């Protein structure tokens, strides 16, 4: 029943990742209450199986783009928790140098190309990255995560349409948590199942249980195989649920406690834990130990982030451009120059 590539150590690693995300988010919430985190904070609690299961099914070298509810993906991709927390704290050592904040984490070294806060805006961007991979004959598959709410936006349509048209290697993963901020699925969408959206592009699609790491893992595994084989994009829908409000500011007037309770009973972490016990991969005690170990790590993470230096206001205007131009310097020079100024082969960001 467990795919054989999911060895016991690997299973324990995945379990630990979900726990790590859960604890990270709880500490982030606490730090927000202490005003160490500002702005909007969107927690991933309840949806851990999606990021962990999906990224386990892909390669660590597969480019990853997500929406703003992005902490879980960053951690599942192996980004340094201290740098993640430091970004939430607005520190210079934060994953995005303190410029982006919670919604805009990114770690290029891990092919994590950002949390994106304009709903759906990253969808055509991922399509373009997938085209670049195809053009350069890399066998990468681009992973794009977004919510059910994003599917109502035109940019979703344009990004999927182009991906289908040009058969690029991308897997679109819709995290259907039944709400777009305060909008229920019935209020925001004429279709209950997001996979139906894919039909307009004749794009293969599959739905899975987003509260079950294995279900997500196996579905995304198949999707990546399809895309990597050159068959074009694949659409995955993960039915999941956020246990907390949309953001810390959310009074949650739009859903009742009973519904939340029902979903909390499906918590992906104990669920996967029970599976590991059933398969004799872990004992109850070992799982508890993992929880305690992660919690201890988190205390250090928060302390380290708290101790991290603030960005220097003197540098606030740096980095607006990769190649800042100073007309004052140029004004002296010639009106035309002999090329080439830059290398022909672009290496983005260099």
């Amino acid at each position, binding site marked *: 029943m467990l795919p054989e590539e999911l060895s016991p150590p690997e299973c324990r690693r995945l379990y630990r990742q979900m726990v790590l995300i859960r604890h990270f988010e709880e500490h982030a919430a606490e730090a927000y209450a202490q005003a160490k985190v500002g702005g909007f904070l969107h927690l991933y609690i309840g949806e851990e199986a999606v990021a962990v299961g999906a990224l386990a099914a892909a390669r660590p070298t597969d*480019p990853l783009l997500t929406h703003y509810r992005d902490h879980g993906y960053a951690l599942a991709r192996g980004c340094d928790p201290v740098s993640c927390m430091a970004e939430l704290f607005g520190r210079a050592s934060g994953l*995005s*140098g*303190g*410029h*982006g904040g919670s919604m*805009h984490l*990114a*770690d290029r070294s891990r092919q994590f190309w*950002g949390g*994106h806060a*304009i709903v759906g*805006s990253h*969808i*055509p*961007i*991922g*399509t*373009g*990255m*997938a*085209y*670049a*991979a195809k*053009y*350069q004959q890399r066998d990468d598959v681009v992973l794009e995560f977004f919510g059910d709410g994003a599917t109502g936006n*035109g*940019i979703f349509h*344009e*990004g999927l*349409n*182009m991906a289908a*048209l*040009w058969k690029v290697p991308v897997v679109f993963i819709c995290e259907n948590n039944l709400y777009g901020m305060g909008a229920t699925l019935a209020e925001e969408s004429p279709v209950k199942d997001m996979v139906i959206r894919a039909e307009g592009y004749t794009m293969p699609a599959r739905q899975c249980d987003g509260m079950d790491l294995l279900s997500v893992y196996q579905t995304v595994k198949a999707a990546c195989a399809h895309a990597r084989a050159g068959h074009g994009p694949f659409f995955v829908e993960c039915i999941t649920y956020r246990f907390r409000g949309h953001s810390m500011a959310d009074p949650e007037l739009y859903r009742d406690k009973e519904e939340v309770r029902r979903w909390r009973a499906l918590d992906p972490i104990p669920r996967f834990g029970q599976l590991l016990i059933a398969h004799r991969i872990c004992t109850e005690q070992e799982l508890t130990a993992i929880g305690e170990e992660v919690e201890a790590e988190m205390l250090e993470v928060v302390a380290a982030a708290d101790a991290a230096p603030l960005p220097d206001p003197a540098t606030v205007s740096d*980095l*607006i*451009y*990769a*190649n800042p*131009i*100073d*007309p004052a310097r*140029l*004004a002296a*020079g010639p*009106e*035309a*120059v*002999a*090329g*080439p*100024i*830059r290398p*022909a*082969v*672009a*290496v*983005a*960001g*260099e």
Partner: protein
Amino acid sequence: MAESTYREAVRSALREEMLRDPQMILLGESITGYGGSYAVTRGLVDEFGPQRVMETPIAEAGIVGFAVGAAMGGLRPVAELMTVNFALLALDQIVNSAAKFHYMFGGQWSVPMVVRTVSGFGQLGPTHSQTFEGWFASVPGLKVVMPSTPADAKGLLLSAIRDPDPVIFIEHSLLYSTRGPMPDDPAQLVPIGRAKRVREGTDVTVVAYSRMLLQALQAAETLEREDGCSCEVIDLRTLRPVDYPTVAASVRRTHRVVLCGEDWRSGGFGAALLAELQDLCFDDLDAPIARVAMPDVPLPYARNLEQALVPSSDQVVQAVRSVL
């Protein structure tokens, strides 16, 4: 010295850079079989194939978003938006993706892409006759270029493509068939951020770009002839960053300025220029800074109405006379 049309100059920049850089791609609407609505890309798909010259759906936001991603993936995309009017549909991707990523993600990557688009008019009606350079030029993270001559069109486009930052490159539909001299070195670059003094003068500084540069030069001739007025004419060429040193130096000599553009008077790029120049040159000014701009009207279709509104060299002449 070799000559070229503005259209051919743009095409040769695209073609020669594609030959030089295998990572460069073009994408846009009707740029393949049709050859581009202004025939700029004609023939390129035959030479480079559909993988490098991509026909796209009519999806401006998607086109720019795709180009941003392609750039992040290591390509050098040049996206054509058929006219600047349609760029409104892509503004979010331009402002919140292309212009933001390098800063917002702490400098981890830049977005080396060019958005080529076109402003202009000619009985195209209210939705198709606008130009928004002032909006683009107000966005930190963007570079904005509007060449007026074939040589600058080529040299600046080459610079734009090789630049690691996103560049908005705005051509003008009424310039495509104009001809001009080309440099002997076909690979010569014109640096972004460098204005050009195209006519020396002592009485007034006329700042223009794109099509208005031609109107300004024509007006300068008229003023020389009829008023014995000596106009210095500066081709701004780049709208972000603006070469204020060059403009201010001229104003300090002439003490009078006329700014020429085709966008709406209220809040157009001319207003942005005026504001900075009054900060830089207030004490040097012997007269208010004058502007030639489009009146605040959605440009109507009827030819006689359009002609009554579009900025012309006559208006530049009158504006100069108003500050003398």
